[in-house]
């Protein structure tokens, strides 16, 4: 029997899904996904390794990985700003996971009391010196020999977080539709997204490598090296 779509289903399919499929195709044809997928795999491995070390923190990584896929799908569908906004969430949740790994009581309270999610990256760095040199030194005394400059990791986190927040809050230069409301593949915006994507994944890989002193996986190591904040 021939399947008949309702008017609304047909409209959704023809006017939204199909044009988005065309954007997918153009994005695929015009870009090399080797680096993105290699580092996505490395990032997923980081999530698995952390879950192995602490299954409770692993809950956050389920969200982080799901967000990462959502961000990639948005970007390849032409929703570049949405994709970048999700990257901010990934960076925030990622930093939270490392913070709570070392603060189990705070994490238990966060969970038990459903506390406000107010551990923004900027708050972590400003109030807790999160991944500042002195913070890292508590578990990695040789950090001063490895970092590119004092507080290189926390400075990078803050800078990156600030840039992503500009997209979230709609700072004018970060708006994507000021020239008109048209959804289409845009190479410049996709490349800009790719840069942010690799930057977020890289700095979280740096936190992982430093905190757990684990450089056994070549792709994780290579991902961490991309941000050039520490020598690995």
């Amino acid at each position, binding site marked *: 029997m021939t399947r008949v779509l309702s008017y609304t289903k047909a409209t959704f399919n023809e006017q939204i899904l199909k044009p988005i499929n065309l954007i997918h195709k153009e994005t695929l044809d*015009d*870009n*090399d*996904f*080797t*680096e993105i*997928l*290699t580092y*996505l*795999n*490395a990032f*997923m*491995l980081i999530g698995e390794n952390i879950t192995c070390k602490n299954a409770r923190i692993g809950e956050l990584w389920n969200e982080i*990985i*799901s967000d990462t*896929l959502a961000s990639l799908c948005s970007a390849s569908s032409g929703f570049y700003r949405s994709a970048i906004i999700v990257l901010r969430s990934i960076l925030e949740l990622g930093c939270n996971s490392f913070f709570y790994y070392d603060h189990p009581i705070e994490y238990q309270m966060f969970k038990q009391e459903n506390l406000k999610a107010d551990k923004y990256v900027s708050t972590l760095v400003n109030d807790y010196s999160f991944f500042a040199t002195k913070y890292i030194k508590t578990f990695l005394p040789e950090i001063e020999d490895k970092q590119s400059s004092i507080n290189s990791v926390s400075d990078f986190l803050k800078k990156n977080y600030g840039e992503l927040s500009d997209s979230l809050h709609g700072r004018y230069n970060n708006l994507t539709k000021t020239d008109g409301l048209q959804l289409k593949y845009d190479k410049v915006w996709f490349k800009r997204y790719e840069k942010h994507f690799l930057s977020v994944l890289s700095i979280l890989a740096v936190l992982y490598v430093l905190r757990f002193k684990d450089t056994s996986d070549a*792709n994780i190591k290579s991902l961490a090296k991309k941000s050039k904040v520490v020598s690995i």
Partner: protein
Amino acid sequence: MNKSLGDYIVDRTESLDDSFITDYFIGHNKDLIIRLLDSEQYLLEGSRGIGKTMLMRIAELQSDANFGKSSILSVWVSFEESIRIERIKVIDSTVDPFLQWTMGKILIEVLSKIIDLKPTCVDELSARLANIFGNAVDVSTSQKKYQHYTKILSEYIQVLEKGDIGDSKILSKIAPSPDLTKILDNPTSFKKFLIELIKDFELERVILLFDEAAHVFSYTQQEKFFTFFKTLRHPRIACKAAVYPGITNYGKYFEKGQDAKELRLTWDFNNTQDIKYIKDILKKRIQSFDLEYWNKLTINTAIIDAICVCSNGNPRLAFHIVDNLENEKVFKQKNISLQQVINSVRSVIENKWREFSTLKNRLAKYKTSIEVAEDLMKYTIIPKTREWNNKQRTTAKSLSAGFYLSTNVYDNISQVFDVLAYSSFVSIDYSKKSVGKGLYGYYVSINPSILFADLILRELGEIKLVSKNIRATQGYYTTTTEIKQLIDNLKIENEYRCSNTNCNYTTNDETFTYCPKCANKMELTEPESLYKILRSHDIENLKFSNKLTNRLKDKFSNIGEIYDADIDVIRMKYIQDVRVEKIKNAAIEYMAG
């Protein structure tokens, strides 16, 4: 360990690994790289050592780097080992060992490349994503099929190259699998399989870069290869073959220009960009070896310019000149003189003539032409051009660096000039030009090394006075005494013999289809297989030291035995890892020419 200049000016690109190729590549001929990666069929034509392999390898490396975006699979296929196939006699025309091997070789290279290009993380990532989306992990069955083919193909190629196979009948018994037998059965089934593979891997197209496509094949193999090349034509398959000018036998089914466009690697000593190209190659390599060497070569620009001009656009020739300067300990002196460079050029050219003589053994079919060509150059063309220029100088007219050859002469004795072009003694411009009296001719330029070594030109500055104008250049016609004699003496005729082994009837008359003595079919006499000729050559031809040669002679009686031997069999006292590899490579290079 001390660095050796030899490691930095290696002759053959085949001896360089991928990172060296990328490092040593000079961005000359970028337009040709684009052509090598497009969807058209091409013949990349250039004389020995001019850089065909380098261009093909760099095109392949660039394509690999871009594979993630373009989905274009470029595969460089070298046929160096094809010579081994000549030992298998074709007695059953339904199975041709050469075609089986050629298709098998291409297929294994294509499959290996697809496997190599797959990022290591892809299977892991697929499993992780399948888990998230609740899919089954899908390592596709077609991928498994191709992996299986790669394994059995590799075994089959080994057997074809090294197995104890006397004739083509045995091939059907050792066929790898019914599936593969079907694929390798004929060029059309092979092409069908390639197209299937392109669909399975969602490739944009497959580019086959055939190196050594003509030189290492026997005369009959060349014809089979180019017929096969033509069959592969498809919008998603692009074949490119590196060939030598002139001597390639395309056969009656392949039309140059129609079935494949020509890409020529050309070079002109009066073109500053062409000179710069050779200079940049030398700079990169010699500076990596020793900055001081480069300084000595360039402190007087006439020195480096002379080397570049004499290279004739052939980096290999430039390397030989520099190598000769090193052997003469010139770099130990404070300065290098122009005379020392000319002496080295002379020595390199003498060596090239010696190599040219040994070419008779390699290119058996061209034996007579090679002998005649050497005499023609040494005793007619070089002295006559020198005398011509001597006269021209007295009247302050333009000088000559070549000659016009009437098309009638070329048509009659093309092989003589083709072997000279193949060895870079001359370059032939195949565009026809009017040479007066209603005749047309080709301009043939003499290698600048010869021009200076044989004093046709006396100093570097004279190249600016060179003219190709017909009035300023000598011409050779069918009426020229020396040429007339050559045409009369050099009639190359095929020999036909009776296919009945008990009958000894032979004739040069091709109209005999059947033997007048016993009525069996007549067949063309094949010259002795090049494979057999080269195999039987003495180990001394590998040009090792006497001590090393004598040690090898204790174990092996000819080059063929070394060529076949496994690395561990070559190993003996005083001949360990480094030398073993050197010996093995020398045997392979010798067999490949």
